[in-house]
């Protein structure tokens, strides 16, 4: 096993990897930018290397600086987390050249699968069903419109690169096509450095169901059950769960087999996720393979008792997969809610700033992978994720109840969070009935508004706080000065 690895990421996912490394006795090296000098991954790792200013291109996306940090600290391997360089094949290739183990699939698989056109071709050859649409990129909006007529509106304009809901637009009619192509392409260029786009059919009443896979270097490939990720806003998953309430054992077996086939067709190694669309008639279509650890991986860990990061490290170290398909047994039900610094009452607009107060929910069956702490400044420069709140219980119903309790006990002051929105979603009838589709939010919550209902208590609390804290606030205003202690030098005995 590795003696020391570098984590080329930040915040909660860097901490997630560090946690398993600590369990395994593997040394950890963080990298950080100006904005992250006090970030949780810097505080939690054994070593930390400053790699530049806050712009991602100058730090977390800067391959040279990260490789240098790895070499300077004698790190044997690099874990990319998700986002940033996680699915950048140049980076994986560079690691291979430098003799540093990239904890993820080989650069070729990343390149093939990262390009949605190529991956669609590979799957077709591998006998995996794919969604109707183009199998080549297209720059001309006119041609896009023609193809849209063929497969029928609505359609999706999709960037061939990247993921995470960026560079994607729904197009319902020909007149929207030009602007959609332009902005999708621009967003993709900005996010992934590649503006190429293509078109595929958009299924309105479809579910997004993905399978976790694990593949070692000896050709052993298994799936670790499914995740239901239909609840999305702006094509960004916000609630994930497992098991899916619509998968029969048969369908699970069939889709699982397809997931393994997809992995093998692309020569996949390490942990990955095969995404499928499941339409209202239970036909499933391959969407893509995410060649990284997913944000939502914890729900799989909760029901299977498997540490997926440990599996990643074992595989990357060249060890044989210790798990067989028959060892994978789901128990109970798990749900994850993504807690971002964002304003649900204002189109989920990011709400960066200082965490004035943080109180995490606790208790049996509750896990909160949190990347911030009281006093930390959520940087404007990066994805505003605060934490992944995960619960596990005997049944879906119990899991929903536990998540509601956890959300109500989750206190975040200083930045806005979607907690009240998520509570309303989890309490809604369609969610409890399991009628979750990718258009769930648009259908049921497009006109959601804040609904504060304890106005009297809130006002009374304001006054009581005034009574209790006046002095305290004065006291604390003093502490503001303390950020740099040199105003106290006068007190020193020299």
């Amino acid at each position, binding site marked *: 096993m590795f003696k020391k690895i570098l984590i080329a990421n930040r915040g909660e996912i860097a901490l997630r990897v560090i946690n398993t490394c600590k369990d395994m006795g593997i040394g950890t090296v963080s990298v950080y930018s100006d904005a992250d000098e006090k970030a949780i991954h810097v505080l939690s790792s054994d070593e930390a290397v400053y790699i530049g200013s806050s712009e991602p291109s100058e730090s977390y996306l800067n391959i040279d600086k990260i490789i240098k940090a790895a070499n300077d600290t004698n790190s044997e391997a690099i874990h990319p987390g998700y986002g940033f360089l996680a699915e950048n094949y140049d980076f994986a290739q560079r690691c291979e050249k430098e003799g540093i183990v990239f904890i993820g699939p080989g650069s070729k698989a990343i390149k093939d699968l990262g390009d949605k056109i190529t991956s669609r071709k590979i799957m077709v050859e591998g006998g995996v069903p794919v969604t109707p649409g183009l199998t080549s990129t297209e720059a001309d909006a006119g041609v896009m419109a023609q193809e849209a007529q063929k497969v029928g509106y609505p359609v999706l304009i999709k960037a061939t690169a990247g993921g995470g809901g960026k560079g994607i637009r729904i197009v319902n009619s020909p007149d929207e096509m030009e602007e959609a192509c332009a902005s999708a392409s621009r967003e993709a260029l*900005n996010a992934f450095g590649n503006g190429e786009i293509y078109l595929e059919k958009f299924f309105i009443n479809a579910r997004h169901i993905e399978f976790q896979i694990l593949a070692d270097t000896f050709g052993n490939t298994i799936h670790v059950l499914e995740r239901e990720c239909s609840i999305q806003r702006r094509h960004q998953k916000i609630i994930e769960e497992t098991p899916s309430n619509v998968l029969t054992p048969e369908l699970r077996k069939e889709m699982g087999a397809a997931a393994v086939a997809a992995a093998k067709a692309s020569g996949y190694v390490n942990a990955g996720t095969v995404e499928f669309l499941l339409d209202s008639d239970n036909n499933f279509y391959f969407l893509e393979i995410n060649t990284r650890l997913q944000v939502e991986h914890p729900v799989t860990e909760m029901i299977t008792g498997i540490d997926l990061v440990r599996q990643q490290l074992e595989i990357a170290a060249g060890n044989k997969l210790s798990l067989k398909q028959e060892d994978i047994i789901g128990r109970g039900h798990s749900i994850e809610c993504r807690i971002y610094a964002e304003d649900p009452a204002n189109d989920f607009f990011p709400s960066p700033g200082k965490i004035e107060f943080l109180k995490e929910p606790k208790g049996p069956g509750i896990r909160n992978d949190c990347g911030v702490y009281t006093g930390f400044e959520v940087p*404007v420069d990066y994805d505003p994720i605060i934490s992944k709140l995960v619960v596990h219980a005997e049944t879906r119903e119990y899991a929903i109840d536990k998540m509601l309790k956890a959300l109500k006990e989750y206190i975040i002051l200083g930045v806005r969070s979607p907690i009240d929105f998520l509570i309303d979603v989890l309490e809604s009838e369609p969610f409890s009935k399991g009628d979750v589709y990718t258009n769930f939010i648009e259908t049921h919550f497009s006109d959601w508004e804040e609904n*504060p209902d*304890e*106005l009297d208590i809130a006002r009374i609390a304001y*006054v009581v706080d005034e009574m209790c804290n006046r002095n305290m606030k004065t006291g604390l205003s003093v502490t503001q000065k303390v950020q740099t202690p040199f105003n106290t030098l006068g007190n020193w005995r020299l």
Partner: protein
Amino acid sequence: MEYKLTIQENTLPVEIDSTDENKVTAKIEDREYDLKYSLISENELHLMVNGKSVNVYVSKNSSGKTIMLEGKTYQIEDADNVSKGPKKRKGVDGPTTVTPHMPAVVIAVSVKEGDRVEKGQGVVVVSAMKMETTLTAPYTGVVTGVNVAENDKVMPGEILVDIEEVKAEEVSELEN
């Protein structure tokens, strides 16, 4: 004593009298409350309101206090302290100037000086935290100045595009 407190532009007087140590009575309109309270930490209060236990979390900010209780967030202002100047908050009619909500980078500017713009038309696209937002014209008018270019870093309050409003009748004139 009495406070005048505003939540979502609704101001109500709150009458509070301390009856005993850590005990108060409160009156809001005709609703009365008996409370026992304890300070748990600088940001945490525990209230017993008519026998029911409530945990309240409070933080101060420029415009008042943010309070969280039972999963919901309340922004409360002391009406006696609220500046009488023009509020910079988003009105229901949307922004009145072309300015970002938060520190951002300009991705694209779709207008140039002299262009005529319709109310709601996109004029600048900014990106913050890797998310794009389109800033729109607050009213129909003519662009009198473009103050930014692509990749500029911009701050809330900074006017990115100056637009001179054109009244309805003038619009019709322009069209003739």
